[in-house]
């Protein structure tokens, strides 16, 4: 009950301002660009092939910018306004606070992904499209986004300054996209799903990553680790 109330407030918070709409519009633009406007092989008009690898291939880097921008507000804003004190005084289980915030922001990501659906639909009108690949790509994107958001929200608990939170999250996302270890590399795990190959190990990796950082956020709140006046 409380989880959904917090999620709804978070959702409302995003759509009350310009940021939510800007987020959706820029996300759709950034992911549609390689398919329709770029001069590379990914442009369906230039290649004449209904292939969405460039579309899904843009997701990791787009998320690495957009998700820190979204998550930077999550806890930093609560701490800056002092409303975190109010939320904690309600005696809600910390896990519910974390999940509520997560679901509220995840909702915006799901909406943004849904708004990109016209891209494959349009491409599908031009030439026959492998819808299995499309489904697989979206599923992978949902998992990828969940793991990234959990990580960024966790990092956001350490700062009451949005810019600092954004920089911290962007740095972490960049490291996870560039790291050589294939086990930890976010982009590597996404390669398969972008190609339409659904490997449960990739999805389990993202799911575990997400759970670990949701739990870590909960622990951060439980310990009130910052222990200084807000």
């Amino acid at each position, binding site marked *: 009950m409380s989880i959904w109330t917090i999620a709804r407030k978070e959702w409302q918070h995003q759509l*009350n301002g310009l940021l939510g709409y800007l987020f959706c519009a820029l996300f759709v633009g950034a992911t549609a660009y390689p398919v329709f406007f770029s001069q590379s092989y990914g442009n369906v008009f230039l290649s004449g092939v209904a292939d969405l690898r460039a579309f899904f291939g843009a997701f990791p880097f787009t998320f690495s910018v957009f998700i820190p921008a979204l998550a930077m507000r999550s806890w930093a804003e609560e701490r800056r306004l002092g409303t975190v004190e109010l939320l904690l005084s*309600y005696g809600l289980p910390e896990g519910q606070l974390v999940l509520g915030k997560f679901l509220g922001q995840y909702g915006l990501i799901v909406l943004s992904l849904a708004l990109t659906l016209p891209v494959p639909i349009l491409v599908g009108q031009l030439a026959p499209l492998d819808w299995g690949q499309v489904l697989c790509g979206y599923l992978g994107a949902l998992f990828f986004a969940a793991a990234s958001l959990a990580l960024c929200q966790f990092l956001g608990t350490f700062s009451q300054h949005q810019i600092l939170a954004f920089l911290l999250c962007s740095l972490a996302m960049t490291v996870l996209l560039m790291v050589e270890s294939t086990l930890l590399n976010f982009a590597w795990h996404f390669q398969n799903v972008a190609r339409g190959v659904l490997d449960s190990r990739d999805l389990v990796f993202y799911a575990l990553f997400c759970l670990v950082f949701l739990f870590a956020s909960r622990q951060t709140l439980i310990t009130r680790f910052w222990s200084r006046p807000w």
Partner: protein
Amino acid sequence: MIRFEGVHKAFGSKKVLNGLDFELKPGSVTGYLGPNGAGKTTSMRILTNALQADQGQVLLDGTPTTELTHEAFKKIGYLPEHTPLYPDLTVWEFLEFSARVRGMSAPATKHRVGELVEPCGLKAVLGQAIATLSKGYRQRVGLAQALLLDPPILVLDEPTTGLDPNQIREILKLIGELGREKTVLLSTHILSHVPTLCDQVLVLNQGHIVFNGTPQAMAERDPDRSRLSLVTAHAPEQFQKLMESCAQVQQVQVETQHRYTLIGSWQNASNVRLLAEFLQKHQIPILELSPEPLSLDRAFHHLTEEVSP
């Protein structure tokens, strides 16, 4: 009902609470006084679960607050310092969120908010975004939020900060009315309202309770008993000089044409008798000779300038 037992809290190397011990009397308004940095806000945050104590515990009906369930926290309504609110929500949206997140059903929320808008004076701004509200209205929204679940305990951290005198009077009147049936812990710097509003006073200094008692008992701690107020029908010229020639008078302050403050060691009754004899000898008619009322301000200053034990 609420009991602090040896609560310690430090932020890094800075000790804020040093073994805080006190108990709130049920159904009373307790004035929580202390200079800035004394630890009032920190202790209130510990009481309301926003912070954790390093040592010691706070008990609510005998149960440590760290072990309380979500349900038990519904007994406490909290208005934090600076009234944190979500500026992009309207007053209604904020109150609805605060009620629903604490488990109140939608119809009950609607009913309860309806009950609160009148006494909290929020009717005119219910649909207005919080960002556009004046400080006074923000404070009322914060107070309404604290009252949503009709909790038996209210913790109010400086609810009058930044308000104009009329707003202060209104808020304090509301708190006074609430205090008839609730246990209120009220942090404030406005000492003039303490005698009429509070049944009990706690004075905190450097993380210790340095006074716990009634407002009257606190005023008794005013160390300055050296001032007598004298009103005379007609004082001769050179009156001030004449009075300074009295051995018992250390200083004469002219308040108005016929009112003077005499500073001396008036704790000693014989000095007062000698002064009366002096006035009689010089044929100065006395309309009033009385000790100046005890001052909470001076008592507060005295209590908080001392180094705590």
